[in-house]
């Protein structure tokens, strides 16, 4: 007779000394884990609830400016510092870690500061600013000596333009920068006059953005509802795209050089592929007022946008609706937003003269985590992902308390859009010529011209 019975020795399964870790054998046989689906669902629900419980996105409000903040630049060589320009012509440099002003120029410009940008190259801390006073100025925290009035530092260099500037951006590698006013001007830093003027159409340009990856391409958007792409190598435009309403801001995707996002007056953010602009790649709709600024995350997978509806929204570039909305009681219209280069924070500058620092993921906490904690977080993330379509979980994950104004406006907007859609559908149905449906991604586009 062959005989064997289970006999586990206690010494094998228990620790010898208190400093040892406990042995935790696993057996993933499904029969040992009954009701696993239900239990994982419950865990997913708990994880979703915990996520919303810990969602405290607001970190700090940095005050100092007297007028609203209308321009902002992050420094690719320094995670800590950010420069802002306000409506009264003041420039401030902030340290995000200590959450205070580290440098300021009270009367940098007469009138509004319309744009700031850093000059690339880690060796200097120079940056450029433009204002409605037709001046472009170079500043440096280390080089600018304080002027005789004791407060305003002196500029490193000043360039005088012919028109009030509306935007500025620096070339990634060459000593060139582009400004926008009623035309786009390309400046060499060593010359006092622009080296090239770029125009296509006669209207005012809202902003100019240089592609930081495909460095010779730049995009502008103007009040004539157009978005124009230029190439610096040929000093000529590439393409012009006209939309139904004008675009307020542009952001190039840092990972996919041919993609860019635009903040439109029609409450939407559009992403475009510059190689095929007859349709938008994606339409991101949730704002209930004009979108004033948009910025890509350094991964190129997410977007942040600030709007006239006094809210900041975060988006997954591939999805149609925002993944989160940030708002604060005292935050007014948001004019500039930036995603920080560590992918962890979001900055917003608004009419109320405050610079606000937010978490990019509302429930995420920084700091070192133990292996166990990280494992638990990953597990929770996966569970939420897996059960995201179950109504109870989705409800918890998607619900946001939004200000009354936004809620009301979004409801009204929804009604409007629905009835418009219904009307279009009815027209299409009863049209004998057999009109095809216009895809949403094409609706806002009036036309594209390629050169």
């Amino acid at each position, binding site marked *: 007779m062959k005989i*064997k*019975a289970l006999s586990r020795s206690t010494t094998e399964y228990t620790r010898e000394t208190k400093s040892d870790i406990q042995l935790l054998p696993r057996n993933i046989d*499904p029969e*040992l884990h009954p009701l696993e689906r239900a239990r994982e*669902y419950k865990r997913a629900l708990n994880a979703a609830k915990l996520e919303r419980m810990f969602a405290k996105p607001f970190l700090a409000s940095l005050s100092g400016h007297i007028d609203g903040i209308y321009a902002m630049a992050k420094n690719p060589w320094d995670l800590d510092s950010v420069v802002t320009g306000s409506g009264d012509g003041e420039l401030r440099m902030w340290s995000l870690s200590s959450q205070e002003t580290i440098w300021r120029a009270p009367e940098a410009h007469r009138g509004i500061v319309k744009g700031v940008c850093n000059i690339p190259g880690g060796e200097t801390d120079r940056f450029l600013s433009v204002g409605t006073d037709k001046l472009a100025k170079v500043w440096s925290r280390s080089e600018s000596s304080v002027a005789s009035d004791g407060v305003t530092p002196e500029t490193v260099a000043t360039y005088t333009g012919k028109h009030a500037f509306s935007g500025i951006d620096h070339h990634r590698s060459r000593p060139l920068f582009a400004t926008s006013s009623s035309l786009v001007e390309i400046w060499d830093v060593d010359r006092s006059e622009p080296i090239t003027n770029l125009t296509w159409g006669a209207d005012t340009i809202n902003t100019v953005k240089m592609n930081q990856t495909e460095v010779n391409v730049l995009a502008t958007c103007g009040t004539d509802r157009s978005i124009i792409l230029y190439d610096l190598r040929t000093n000529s435009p590439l393409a012009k795209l006209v939309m139904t309403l004008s675009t307020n801001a542009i952001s190039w995707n840092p990972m996919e050089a041919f993609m860019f996002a635009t903040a439109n007056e029609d409450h939407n953010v559009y992403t475009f592929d510059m190689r095929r602009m007859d349709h938008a790649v994606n339409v991101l709709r949730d704002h209930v007022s004009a979108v004033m600024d948009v910025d890509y995350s350094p991964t190129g997978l997410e977007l942040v946008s600030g709007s006239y509806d006094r809210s900041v929204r975060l988006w997954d570039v591939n999805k149609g609706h925002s993944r989160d909305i940030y708002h604060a009681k005292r935050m007014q219209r948001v004019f500039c937003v930036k995603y920080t280069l560590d992918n962890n924070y979001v900055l917003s500058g608004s009419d109320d003269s405050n610079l606000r620092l937010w978490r990019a993921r509302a429930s995420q906490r920084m700091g070192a985590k133990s292996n166990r904690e990280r494992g638990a977080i990953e597990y929770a993330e996966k569970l939420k992902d897996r059960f995201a379509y179950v109504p109870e979980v989705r409800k918890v994950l998607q619900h946001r308390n939004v200000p009354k104004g936004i809620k009301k406006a979004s409801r009204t907007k929804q009604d409007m859009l629905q009835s418009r859609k219904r009307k279009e559908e009815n027209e299409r149905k009863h049209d004998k010529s057999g009109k095809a449906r216009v895809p949403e991604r094409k609706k806002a586009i009036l036309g594209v011209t390629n050169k």
Partner: protein
Amino acid sequence: MAATDKLSARLRNEGEGDASGGTFAKGNVSHTARRADKDDATNTAADDSEDERVPRTLRDAPAKSDRALATAKMNGRRDKPNKSSKARAKSTDKEESKNKEKKRVPDKLEKEILARSEKYQRGLKLTSTGDDGKEPVAAIKVRSKKAQPKIEHEKRRREHAIIDAARSEMLLTEQAGYLEAEGEMERTYKVTQDQLADSLDINSRAKIFDLKLEEFGPYVMDYTSNGRHLLVGGRKGHLATMDWRSGRLGAEFHVRETIRDVCWLHNENLFAVAQKRYAYIYDHSGAEVHCLQKHVEPTALGFLPFHFLLASTGMTGRLMYQDVTEGRIIGEHKPGYGPNHVLKVNPYNAVVHMGHGNGIVTMWSPRQSQPLAKMLCHKGPVQAMAIDRSGTYMATSGLDGSLKIWDIRNFKSLHEYSTMRPAQSLDISQRGLLAAGWGANVTVWKDALVSKVDAPYMKRLLPSTTVSDLRFVPYDDVLGYGHSSGISSIVIPGAGEPNFDAFVANPFETTKQRQEAEVKQLLDKLAPETIQHDPTFIGRLDPRSRDERQLELLESRRDQYAKDKADGKYLDNEVKNKMKGRNSSAKRFARKRANNIMDLKKLNAIESAEKAKLENEAKRRKIPESEKGALGRFYDEKRATD
């Protein structure tokens, strides 16, 4: 076999790289989640691999099968250039035969892993060949172009997970027990416990004992889910808890009234006892925590560990569900078959099975007032019942003397066994051994659920006693049973699951671990609504469209309404049809109510309005041309109504 080929192809491709891939997954299904992180590491490992790698960690140490797989991988690599370049394709036969020779080995192992992977598929049949009538997942056509690659990706990940899970079995440390006859003449059921004890180690030998408690018997008993603690209750009021392996007594006291059943709650800190009038909950020290007065004259108790529900039935014949965390009564069902003493919880889906005096077995979910299923199992009263952990088999015994095995997935009888007297109690072990207690005997069958076996596996007779209750010990090869003169514990090799999962039930649990587990259990407490025949219904996609769902809901409500109406529930609630011109009251009613509210009344109103419209149109007379005369062309067809 297309899918099998695919899998084995994957096995071959992964080769050695996955030797480290067969890790323990976290949680139960989450190994799907871990896969992505692992991929990079495993791929690099595969690239760097030499023929004989030095195992760096325990996980890397290649088991026999994986070493063979590693060889397969090397072969695969050697094969590749042969295929690609023509010159090499004409390599010598010798080399080819050598390759073929080496290939044969992993095929077997691949099959083994495939066979093992069966149980990890969780009914999804990702590798289904279509033989079972189900479509393989890959074949599901989704209209959305965006979703298609996601589904593909998910499918691939699941396949990885299944194979990894099957592979991880080699990390299990314990082997199951066995008792095998060697010669033709040997019979396992002839082995007595004394003989068994001689060939067992001292640890196992101590598990065979008889406690003589003749005053207060017969005894009922229960083990905790990790098998460490034993709770015994004598019919005449004796209660005791103990760590039975060490023999350490927990609490022992006398309740001075009849005890009909005992049951541990979620851990060894609390237990419930069915006493003469009510059910009571006591704590580990024996202090009375609660008196559950809603459970009147209970005879049988069952605990649903994931839902924290205590189920009881009794002389009233009702089934009561009480939430032991907050004390609410979750459900109270009246099967209506009189007093009742057979109640078992299906461990697979937490459905409660009740055996009745008329031979019927009913299955219950706390939130449904009607049973999920009813089965006529016996010609006489149901005496005992047991359900296996996979939720596939149920064993019942009746006073009609039969012991039947049922497939509870399709409610069919499989086989029938007989005992000399009706089995008083039944239990199924983790590894599928069936034990029956009848009179003074305990009989254990092996493989009795899957097929009809001729002879029992083991037997024991304790003269001049009556077996009242028997339980297999989880994660151990022991069967404990209570009888009229005490309790006994015998060793049944091969009964228990050899490898426990410390996150599910840990026989070597420390106090700290128990406390942590308790918190986790409470966090994961399931709603009573999750109890259904098929526990995987949660998170499933509802293929109906929203309109269809809405319609079905409305229709079901309408049916209910019609039924209620027929019962005379709504006499004065009907929509009046006064026929005042075209503007019917029903129409007005339908119009008046807000557009977005669809209730029964409105639905009926709309229907009757439409009906009236149709009738009106039917009534409209068509006037023949001859009658119209000269004024024919002024006739308005629409106005020509009666």
